[in-house]
């Protein structure tokens, strides 16, 4: 048996897309949309349970992209132009930093935002986790419009992330990385690891130079391959077994290509790049993979 994880923006249902269209045209109230989002989120949680997915985050149906509500809830950050997400045909609004970011909105309460559906940032059931883009990815996907030192900016984002975790009663967190670290060191995440359990979804396979200096361990570290040395920095390892960029459905039996240190399987990017119907099937398959491995 392997644990299974579904994280990040999940594709909206047809009903939800249509509701958004009506809300954008002023045909339904923000409160009504918010209620539909809430219902859809709880339907998603039921689907996770039904499919045997053990770990899942909020599906973020009220996020327009993986950065937006967090950026809009911080001072000194604005939304810039639409920008391509990696090599996809999906776009996000590039954040522009004008100073040190500070959370100034209560992410737990209903509140209207400009250029995004309303808060709360997360509506959690008994088991669901928080999801955040890693500070490293957030900064790399942004433009610095002020004379800011990158290390200072990264540390300040960690401080703000700790506040977000506290606001949601110390709920565990999936931290998502869009880019390979190269020579970048992420030991500044240590205070965040101290504050809650963190599952890191990394690109490539992190190396010693990327992790050196971390005093606390990740709960799990999911990479594009298995390296047992990563166990120095994580209680367990995970692999990516399902593609979020192909509609072809993977076989339910997973090769035992990983060693015993692997106890978590998930997908290679957040699922929002797929049609909803396909994403739902892939979730079922992922659940079965976990059972049969």
């Amino acid at each position, binding site marked *: 048996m392997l644990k299974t994880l579904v994280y990040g923006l999940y594709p909206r249902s047809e009903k939800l*897309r249509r509701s958004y269209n009506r809300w954008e045209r002023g045909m339904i109230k923000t409160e009504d949309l918010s209620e539909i989002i809430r219902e859809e989120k709880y339907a998603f949680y039921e689907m996770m349970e039904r499919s045997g997915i053990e770990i899942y985050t909020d599906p973020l149906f009220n996020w327009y992209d993986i950065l937006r509500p967090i950026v809009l809830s911080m001072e000194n950050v604005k939304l810039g132009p639409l920008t*391509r997400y990696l090599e996809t045909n*999906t776009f996000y609004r590039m954040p522009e930093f004008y100073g040190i970011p500070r959370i100034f909105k209560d992410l737990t309460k209903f509140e209207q935002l400009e250029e995004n559906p309303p808060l709360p940032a997360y509506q959690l059931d008994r088991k669901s986790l928080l999801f955040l883009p890693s500070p490293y990815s957030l900064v790399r996907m942004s433009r610095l419009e002020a004379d800011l030192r990158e290390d200072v900016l990264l540390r300040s984002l960690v401080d703000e992330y700790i506040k977000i975790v506290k606001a949601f009663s110390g709920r565990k967190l999936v931290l998502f990385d869009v880019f390979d670290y190269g020579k970048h060191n992420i030991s500044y995440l240590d205070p965040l690891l101290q504050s809650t359990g963190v599952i890191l979804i990394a690109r490539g396979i992190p190396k010693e130079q990327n992790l050196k200096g971390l005093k606390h361990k990740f709960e799990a570290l999911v990479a594009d391959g298995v390296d047992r040395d990563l166990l120095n920095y994580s209680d367990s390892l995970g692999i990516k077994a399902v593609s979020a960029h192909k*509609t072809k459905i993977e076989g339910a039996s997973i090769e035992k290509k990983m060693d015993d240190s692997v106890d978590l399987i998930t997908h290679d990017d957040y699922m929002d790049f797929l049609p909803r119907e396909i994403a739902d099937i892939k979730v079922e398959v992922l659940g079965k993979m976990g059972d049969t491995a």
Partner: protein
Amino acid sequence: MKELITQEIGSFRKPEYLARDFHKIEGTPRFKELAEKATRETLEVFERSGLDNVGIGGEMFRWEMYEHPAERIKGIIFYGMVRSFDNRYYRKGSAIDRLERREPFHVDEVNFVARSTDRPLKVPITGPYTMMEWSFNDYYESREDLAMEFARIINEELKDIQRTWDKVSGGRKLEIQIDEPATTTHPDEMDIVVESINRSVEGIDGEISMHVCYSRDYRLLYDRIPDLKIDGYNLEYSNRDLLERGLSDEKRPGFNDLKYFTEINESLQRRKFIGIGVTDVHIDYVEPVELIEDRINYALKIIKDPEIVRINPDCGLRTRSREIGEQKLRNMVAARNNVLKNL
């Protein structure tokens, strides 16, 4: 050769009577009737605006540039909608089997438009690289393989268009525009772009142009002009430009990279023409004639030869209302006429 030819890029907003029921009636006699009516009305708009080349009458037979051909290809299926941004979604097809053209994409449209006007036409067709980039690849081994398969299919389509054109052209030359908005999205795949486009136009006897818009770096395209079997480029410039008047480099930032284009172009044995986008299709603001004149004059300061410069909007005008679209075209033609007077 005529100087500063004015042209449309492709799409124009569909009248409500066609847009409302498009998907419900597509493929029926009623659809044919309404698409032809909308095409005639749009050709009237283009002719009234004074355009030299009236394109394909605003693409009234097509809902969207990807979906239209993809729906007519065996081996592609649609599972549902995929997000583009915010709550904007598009139907992204999946290549699940060997691709084969099920039926022609544009032959009926070319046939009808050619018989409906005696002005020059330009037939836009979505290019192989963009078709590949906007599809899920669940069948072919590589992105290159998929792009080359789309190229084979587009070449079949272009040959059918050529055969139709020979019957209805009335002596006009065949003009084809390969639409490739995805061209420069992966800098390390420019070889695939070049090879797939060249394969698409193999054996086609006509003037072939290429349309690219909203690239982050057009120099990637300019560098490959010597390798592409393309006669000219219709590109977007105004979206990157200022709305202030002026002829300096600072006032015309959107058009600065024409210098690099010209550097490459002047080194060729046979120079390419360049269609410059002089009106931004993403804003309702109708650029005044004087501003458009400045944009054309700035381009001519760099390119110098008005015979290889054409004048067009940045992209298809489908995102603007028909009224605003027409105003933008009218101002574009008026600006071109003023510039011609002073040449």
